[in-house]
Each structure stands twice: as C-alpha cells, then as structure tokens.
C-alpha cells in the first residue's frame, strides 16, 4: 500500500524534525528572552550572528528542520480539514517547503554576511 508507506515515512520525518526542533526552539526562546533585554537593535543582532559559524550552523539546522516539519503539519491540516485533493495538498506542501528553505537561507546568509563579513 503506497499511501500507507508515504504516511509512515512522513510520520517519521515529522517526529525526527520535531526532536531537532525541540532543542532548537529551547535555544531560540532563551536567546529571545535574553536579546530583548534593554531593547532590540539591528546592530545587536548583526554583532551576535555576523561571521559566527556556530550560529550559522545552528540556524541552518533550524531552518532545514522547520522546512521539513511545518509543511508536513500543514499537509495534515489541509487533508483533514479542507476538501483539497491529495495532489493539490502535495503541491502546497512542496511549495511551502521551498519557500521556507529559500527565505530562511536568504535570512541566514544575509545576517552571516551583514557588516561586511
């Protein structure tokens, strides 16, 4: 049954990405609460991440994991709560995945190279 096999694979990818995101989101929330102290400025953000390979790697993993996780979640909602056909849902999911990857890495590279790095 190919349908069931696809569902099983997506379930595994959803849980694997969730495990990675669990760590990423804890770090992200900690950084948010820390960074907003005393007000947020672009210089502060750029100084933290620009040219820093560790943050570059962290946010790359974060974006890849969310590009897997979010479209699978949206797919489940579209399949269960809208009359969209599976083909259309698949197209939406694939497009959303590519949008997250493209916009996410544009932001990561932009911040990494900001400030003339």
């Amino acid at each position, binding site marked *: 049954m190919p349908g069931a096999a696809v569902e099983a694979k997506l379930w595994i990818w959803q*849980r694997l990405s*969730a*495990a990675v*995101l*669990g760590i990423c*989101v*804890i770090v*992200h*929330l900690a950084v*948010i*609460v*820390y960074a*907003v*102290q005393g007000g*947020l*400025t*672009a*210089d502060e*953000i*750029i100084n933290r991440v620009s040219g820093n390979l560790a943050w570059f790697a962290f946010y790359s993993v974060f974006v890849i994991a*969310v590009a897997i996780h*979010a479209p699978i*979640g*949206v797919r489940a*909602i579209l399949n269960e709560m809208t009359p969209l056909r599976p083909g259309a849902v698949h197209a939406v999911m694939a497009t*959303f995945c590519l*949008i*997250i990857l493209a*916009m*996410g890495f*544009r*932001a*990561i590279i*932009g*911040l990494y190279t*900001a*400030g003339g790095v």
Partner: protein
Amino acid sequence: MFRGHRQHAHYWAFALHRIAGLLLALFLPAHFYVLALSIEGAAAMDGFIRWTDAPLVKLAETVLVILLAAHLTGGLRLMALEFIGTRESSKAAVAIGTGIALAVGLMFLLNVT
C-alpha cells in the same frame, strides 16, 4: 454548551497544538523577510524594529512566544505519549505544558517592557 469531547483537556491540547502550529507556520515567511532586511543594512532593519515598539505589536509578539512555547511543550507531550507511553488520561502533562508556555510568555513580557 460544549459537546462531550470538547470538555476533554486533551481535545483542547490538540486544538491549541494545531492552531499554534498553523499560526507559527504562517508567521515564518514574515519572520525571514524581516531578518533578510539585514542585507539592505542595519538601518533598514532598525526601521522595522522601531515599528515593533508599538504596544499592540509587543502584545502580538508575546502571543507568538507563548504559541511557540506551547507548541514545543505540546509536541514533547505528544512524543512522550507515542514513545514512552505516558498514560493518555493524564491531564498533568497538559497543565504543566500550558504552565511552562505561559511562564515563558511572562518572562518575555517582563524582559521586553
């Protein structure tokens, strides 16, 4: 009057997890767009950050932080159910998860204002 299943804590946990996930997914492109303003320079990004000083935006940010924390704790609860086999009837996990999410939101609010 609520129908039977809607009186169940796990129904509300499911609904919150789904709504939070959807809103976070919709927020992502906007988040990345703003971060990519750094390509145009710090001034472009600062222009947007000043807009976020408005009280209503701060409130929306706090809701987003709570949604992110709630989706995290909801996901951990779900995976605990699936992989460790925590008793499904346990409402404690729902309560603890909600509490942590609200606490993170409060920490954000206390630091941002």
